[in-house]
């Protein structure tokens, strides 16, 4: 997978970007300079890693919170 293809995948599966921004960026990827592809790809890779790591923990915390609320209606 080359970097532009990778960037397209990361944009499509990004949690950080709203749908309109995703559409705008996807239309621009072909015309992007390699440095921009690199910078955006790096950001989205970090975003995805951090978000996935945090989500597992947050989902556990939310489960505990829901259980607490349901105990005291």
């Amino acid at each position: 997978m080359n970097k532009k293809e990778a960037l397209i995948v990361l944009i499509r599966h990004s949690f950080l970007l709203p749908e309109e921004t995703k559409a705008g960026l996807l239309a621009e990827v072909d015309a992007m300079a390699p440095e921009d592809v690199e910078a955006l790809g790096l950001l989205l890779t970090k975003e995805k890693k951090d978000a996935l790591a945090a989500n597992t923990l947050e989902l556990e915390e939310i489960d505990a919170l829901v259980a607490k609320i349901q105990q005291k209606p």
Partner: protein
Amino acid sequence: MSKKSRLVFDLANSLSSRAILQNMEKFPSSHEKPPAGPPPLPEPVPVPPPLPERPEMPETESSRQSRNIVRESKWARLAADKDIQEGLGALARTAANAGISLADLMPAGIGEIGSWGADALKWTNWILRGLGLIEKNIDLTPSVSKMTATGSEAFEFISLGLMPSHAIETLLQLKREDLPKIRKMIVRIKKILAEEQADYLNNKREIDDAMEAFNNHDDHE
């Protein structure tokens, strides 16, 4: 970090901050009458299995920045959801009502200022909205009728100001409207977070390959 990377970070940071500010303006005050009867329990949300543990990497300045951006953006995205906006509004209203109820415990009539103020706000809200002068609902207990709110102040006279009468309105508001909205918000947050997890698990190989393409540079940051 290169200048371009820094530029993208700054851009993402400012976009996410702006989104949060815009969403804060939109925090609602509900105009709807809640349905009668006990609040419905939130529907269970299917949660995908947890991800395998990743080896811990030393944290760098860019990792910290990235994590802050993700956190801000995540909350900006969550706060754009209607159910979550309503839940946050309910949470803020509950905090304000709880504060007034606590202050209402103060003797010698000092505590009544907040309680009477909240009742005055309810009547002012009714008059101004009736005249079409304001659109927002500034009532702190919209699910409690004006008569109940004002009538509960009678307990202040009976108890010589010792009873926190605003607690009655606070509890009614919490039970009738705010607690169901807070529950709904929590379930919605869970659903959105679970969606992202599920999206990753369904497209794991493709996403992992894409992240791998940028991983070498990440390690040198």
